């Protein structure tokens, strides 16, 4: 049974009607630009998925796992991140969308293409929707996480956009302990912005998560993320620490993962609440 059928009932017409309804009438005029293409494209992808495929899920949307796809497997991932509650700007709100296609090149190496990262941002002075970047991501598994050993992988990403360029590297670790998993990601990131790419900054991130799988299909957990920014690669900006719970569900050929993050430091220019939703469908 795939996502497009439920209790034996074909859900495709309902999903399409739902997408059009959200698109045409439920949203205020101002928001139409955000949702105008999102739902029809997303549901067209769902319609296209085959039934009864395996799915390589994520147990938390804020951390990567050193688990790579099986050779030849292709997956579509839809990301939505909502950021809000910034003390320095009460009107601040941002939606980030990512359309990603992942491909298992070998059993231990996968590539991903961010077809488009685009954003809708509202601040006290403006509100606009804009394309941000496209990207290529590669994950090479050094050691698979399983009961015998610590899982390890290398992650690299290149992002390019209008007046934006970014390089990102990660070390991914995971220890599987029966139904409990421990995850750690170390990230280092270099970013160049501006007309001449002359505004540069660096970022170091430590992310930890613990998850529990009561059944193979369901994962619950908690994560903590500690970010440190280095504007101009010179002095260190304020640390930002966020924590939150997560829940993931894996089904036939699709999975969903959602997690809020609450800022526990007191940095006025950073959002106090972020929620990320990931949906993956296998081809």
């Amino acid at each position, binding site marked *: 049974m795939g996502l497009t059928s439920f209790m034996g009932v074909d859900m495709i017409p309902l999903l399409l009607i739902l997408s059009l309804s959200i698109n045409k009438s439920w949203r205020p005029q101002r928001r139409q630009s955000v949702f105008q293409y999102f739902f029809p494209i997303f549901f067209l992808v769902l319609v296209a998925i085959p039934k009864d495929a*395996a799915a390589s899920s994520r147990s938390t949307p804020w951390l990567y796992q050193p688990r790579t796809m*099986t050779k030849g497997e292709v997956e579509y991932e839809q990301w939505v991140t909502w950021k809000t509650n910034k003390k320095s700007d009460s009107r601040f709100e941002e939606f980030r969308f990512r359309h990603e296609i992942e491909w298992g090149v070998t059993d231990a190496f996968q590539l991903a293409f961010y077809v488009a990262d685009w954003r809708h941002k509202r601040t006290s002075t403006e509100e606009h929707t804009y394309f941000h970047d496209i990207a290529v991501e590669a994950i090479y598994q050094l050691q698979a996480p*399983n009961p015998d050993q610590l899982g390890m992988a290398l992650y690299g990403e290149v992002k390019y956009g209008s007046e934006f360029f970014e390089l990102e590297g990660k070390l991914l670790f995971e220890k599987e302990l*029966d*139904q*409990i998993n421990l995850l750690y990601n170390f990230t280092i990131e270099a970013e160049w912005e501006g007309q001449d790419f002359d505004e540069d900054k660096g970022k170091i991130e430590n992310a930890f998560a613990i998850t529990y799988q009561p059944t*193979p299909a369901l994962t619950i957990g908690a994560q903590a993320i500690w970010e440190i920014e280095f504007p101009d690669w010179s002095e260190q900006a304020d640390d930002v620490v966020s924590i939150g719970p997560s829940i993931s569900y894996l089904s036939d050929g699709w999975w969903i993962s959602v997690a809020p993050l609450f800022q526990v430091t007191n940095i006025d220019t950073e959002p106090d609440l972020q929620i990320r939703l990931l949906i993956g469908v296998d081809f």
Partner: protein
Amino acid sequence: MCKILITLALFFMFVGCMDVTKVAPKVNTLKTRTNIAMLELGRDVYINRCTKCHNAVRITRYSQKQWDNEIMEEMIFKSKLTHEQSIAVTAYVRAVLENSLIEN
């Protein structure tokens, strides 16, 4: 800071005491002495292919009947295993379950 370190130390002590070898026992710990190569392949498939999507489930959490009727066929299909891999992983799971019956 001290409290955090103590909590982390206690947590890792707890984690260190977990016996993960029982999740998917090594073939040389089983009573079976036949088809060792096939059982090794079955264990390799079990701990490396199943974990592409989820944790390796402790085999003895489910009965032979549940493995045969509810789990194995569906998982083999979803994982797109070859015929050889399917036979090997089925034999390995059966060997682990039979072994646990002998031990208990």
